[in-house]
């Protein structure tokens, strides 16, 4: 079983309200580009979502478009769920908080 996402095609999404479902993330992100895969981890003990997800797009150019779109919209505030702005960043990019 392969649970990882391809870093070169994925965004990290943080500040996700635990009420958000994987289906909602899928529906939201396909608005910006085709989604291959979503990793949305749950706490093993509590069985609640941990507040972040990785969204893998179909192609690198889809990812680049999404990052560009996010950066040019309302200071990166492009998607809000349950009154929380999703934090969308390139996967593996830790210098930008």
């Amino acid at each position: 079983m392969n649970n990882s996402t391809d870093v070169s095609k994925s965004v990290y999404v943080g500040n996700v309200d635990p009420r958000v479902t994987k289906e909602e993330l899928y529906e939201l992100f396909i608005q910006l580009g085709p989604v291959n895969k979503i990793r949305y981890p749950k706490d093993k003990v509590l069985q609640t979502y941990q507040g972040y997800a990785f969204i893998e797009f179909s192609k690198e150019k889809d990812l680049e478009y999404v990052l560009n779109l996010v950066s040019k919209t309302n200071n990166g505030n492009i998607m809000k769920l349950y009154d929380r702005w999703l934090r969308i960043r390139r996967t593996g990019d830790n210098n930008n908080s």
Partner: protein
Amino acid sequence: EAQWRKMIKDKVPGKLSTNLRTAMGLEDGQLPPWCMTMNEIGMPPAYAGMQVAGINWDISNLKDGTYAKVTNLPKIGNKNNKSQ
């Protein structure tokens, strides 16, 4: 995985379910926040020819959760996907 295949079948770009619109706080007749930026930088590369209501598609198409139209939708979803 059956659930993933169902999602791929049910969800399309250009349409937002009532459930998701509620979670987003998006009211009837309101365009999602990314539409204006799409107008500036161009439509998603995978959705060439995407038409957005009020931008390059008649505003009257903005109803029942639909805000845009994508023709020639590429095949999406990884058939080997086993994530949960």
